[in-house]
């Protein structure tokens, strides 16, 4: 499943880039995040309670940041496992200056497996968008 989107942020690129890799900011922006810890070497682990409406699951996720090119670009992989199945994602974030602020573009592939995949097909795309949106909306407020 492909996901992508564009957000406008008021802060300058450098600050956005920094925030995007700061465990504390991430933990705040991530919907339902119980813990978010840096494991060094660009790896993080998180415990996230995510879902839509009444469908919620707790996932243990491992996030890795790769191909870091501050303040423009990085790649991120996510592997999560929880009661509803598993999630794997691989995406890229691009930052470009726009006026006084920053234009953030993300695009990626998300693979969902297990229970959620086989019973939630019809809402998957929409739900994924919603979760990512929630994150970025919260993130926009932080910067």
């Amino acid at each position, binding site marked *: 499943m492909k996901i992508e989107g564009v957000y406008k942020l008021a802060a300058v690129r450098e600050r956005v880039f920094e925030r995007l890799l700061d465990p504390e900011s991430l933990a705040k922006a991530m919907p339902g995040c119980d813990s978010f810890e840096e494991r060094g070497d660009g790896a993080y682990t998180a415990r996230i309670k995510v879902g839509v409406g009444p469908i919620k699951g707790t996932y243990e996720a491992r996030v890795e940041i790769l191909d870091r090119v501050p303040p423009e670009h990085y790649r991120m992989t996510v592997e999560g496992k929880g009661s509803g199945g598993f999630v794997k994602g691989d995406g890229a974030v691009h930052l470009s200056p726009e006026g006084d602020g920053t234009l953030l573009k993300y695009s990626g592939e998300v693979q969902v497996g297990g229970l959620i995949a086989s019973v939630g097909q019809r*809402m998957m795309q929409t739900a994924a968008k919603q979760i990512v949106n929630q994150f970025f909306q919260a993130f926009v407020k932080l910067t």
Partner: protein
Amino acid sequence: MISESFEYHVPKTIEEALGMIGEFGDESKVLAGGHSLLPMMKLRLASPKHLIDIGRIGALRYIRESEGQLELGALTTHFEIESSSLLKSKCPLLPETAREIGDVQVCNRGTLGGSLVHADPAADWPAAMLAVEAEMVARGPHGERKIRARDFFVDLMATALQSDELLTAIRVSPLPARTGDAYLKLHHPASGFAVVGVAVRLTLAESGSIGEARVGVTGVGAKPYRAEETERLLAGKSPTAKRLEEAAAHAADGVDANSDLYASGDYRKHLAAVYARRAIQRAAERAAGR
């Protein structure tokens, strides 16, 4: 298909139910007809520890007319709406919508309130609620408040109802003079839900031109919405086929459309335009006949 274990509670009154919701909080779920909640529990997508069955609160189940408004208790079933002679004469859009929902079992158990709170992006009721500008009545620990339909649906399976509130009633205004309504949908062949559904309430002015049109759309986006551009293009115009088509073409403007195995976002947007035109056409014809 066996759910996790849960504790089952049967409040007899709204107050008792609110007390339980307050007590169990996030660990609990209200059970109405169960036709959305129970399948999710059986799939273990949702696993509330406490189930508060409001199904036996008689005070939530009625259809009545008071102060010129129609009021439906949240527990009113799809079938009760479909077969209500009061609604058939005063707000035919509701029985017409009910007829398009699920099968007999679903209609006998499923409730209007449950459907609205569940806010499935493909549910039928939200479109009709938007078209008739329904008002949702919510009761919480701090009393009662009213929420307009257009403020009620917030996002995918998310509403303005707070987790400590109960939806108790739905208020709709009866069909005014020279007004017609219509609900049309493309049924998903598996679920029966709306791939796209469009509900319209349209009033003709004395002159024969369109006074006001309200167009509610479900199935297309993460949440149901009013097709505002379409409504704007209709207002004050005479309902010619060309006008309707031009206006309906904007039925999914600016919507980030859902996409799944059955229908892509582009196709959904196209369907929205076609179904909007047909529903508006039908509503206009009905308005002319009243």
